[in-house]
């Protein structure tokens, strides 16, 4: 898309967040900067998807925009792709889905 984004940066939206957003299509093993942390990717991660820049344990909240967007359903290591395979929605606002 753009030169700067080709440098494969991870964008952290707020200080409370424990995930960064990947700004270009990245490959397993690539190193990207997430704020002050250099993270080695443990999966291929597409533009707009999330990466962990720190460990997140099962049951801990995933924080984006400064708010929980779900909880970890698996142990998450720095560099992991964070998505539907290791996160579940947790708030009462998802009750409709849980009833399905």
């Amino acid at each position, binding site marked *: *898309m*753009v030169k*700067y*984004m080709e*440098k494969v*940066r991870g*964008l952290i*939206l707020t200080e409370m967040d424990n995930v960064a*957003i990947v*700004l270009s299509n990245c490959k397993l093993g690539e190193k990207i900067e997430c704020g002050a942390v250099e993270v080695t990717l443990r999966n291929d991660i*597409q*533009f*707009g*998807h*999330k990466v962990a820049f720190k460990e997140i344990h099962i049951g801990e909240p*995933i924080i*984006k*925009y400064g*708010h*929980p*967007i*779900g909880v970890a359903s698996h142990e998450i290591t720095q560099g992991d792709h*964070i*998505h*539907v395979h290791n*996160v*579940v*929605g947790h*708030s*009462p*606002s*998802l*009750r*409709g*889905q849980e009833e*399905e």
Partner: protein
Amino acid sequence: MNMSEFLGYPRSVGKAGIRNTVLILPITRFANQVAWQISQLVTGVTVWQNPGELGRHQGDRERLRRVMIGLASNPNTYGIVICGVRADFGYPENKLNALLPILEATGKPIEIVMIENEGGVHQATARGVDMARELVFQASQVRTCPVPTSELTIGLKCGHSDATSGMAGNPVLGRAVDLLIGQGGTVIFSETTEVIGAEHILSDRATSSDVSKRFLEMVHHTEEQARAVGQDIRSINPIPSNIAAGITTLEEKSLGAVVKTGTTPLNGVVEYAGIPAGNGLWFMDGWMSSYSLPMSLAAAGAQLVIYQFGGQDLPEGAPMPAINTGVVSPLFFTTGNPNTAKNARHGVDYNASGVLLGTATLEQAGKELYERIVAVSSGDLVRGETLSFKDPLEIYFDGPVF
């Protein structure tokens, strides 16, 4: 640049305008032709077309009434030419004698042309042209003056969301919103279906339990309407293309949308096309359609409507998602997507993609956007205002019709 003042058109009652238009207002669908013809013969006017009141229940007739009163009393409206059939025509709440005392309280010059009194449509058109020309002439004598930005009300809309919306476009808009509210201004957001999943965040920001309760009631009403037609909004969101784009949960999707509201408390809620009773952040029950919401926000008193869009899916040489749908209020486009900013450059008023390009922080871009808002409030045109075309409009009726 002074960020606490804009050059506005002072009004005898209420806030200053950022535009200075004469509204041609047909209060019944029978007068649409007269209103339209007046608008084709006179410069400096804005015409609105009445979607019709017949067969609508009282709640929806009141929605129609609030839109008419709201557009007429918007600070951008200098004066009004009311077009009708006769004074006692139609349902009680939308008759001239019901509307007139409220419109007169706005302090704005009002002219009235009734088809029966003039002897027909064409005679009424001729009379209305004379009236509109006189009001436009008077409007030209209003001088702008420095006005505190606390008198600004902006409406928010987001759409054509993509991966950039939640990480660039909306956070930048949220920072501009915080700056305006910090100056004492007013911001109205809406799109009831698109707060579902983040309603707890917003209700937690409410300044009172009553505000929180009314807000949640509006959200639940929309959910109930979906259930009534056999749909569960929560079971279909996020949709597969959202998940493919990296959105994992419904909370994440809605948070990406509501981040445009910034961080200040939720001061109040208004019903559809209702006018907030104070400043700060307000929620209006409304439909997300870009052919409906900008008009509805203008009716709620917004002098300017900001449309934040992702737009990754727009075709090359992109047509904008809506053109001049704010009726009396300009529609300002911003995007955080670098591709969209390039592809839709003839329609984008502020390019927030520097956040993703690494050329600006969220704070810097938010301040720049705020500065553009002040500049447009002082008379800079938005791109859409350089076009004479206006998309058709739809009021958010509750339905059904009978």
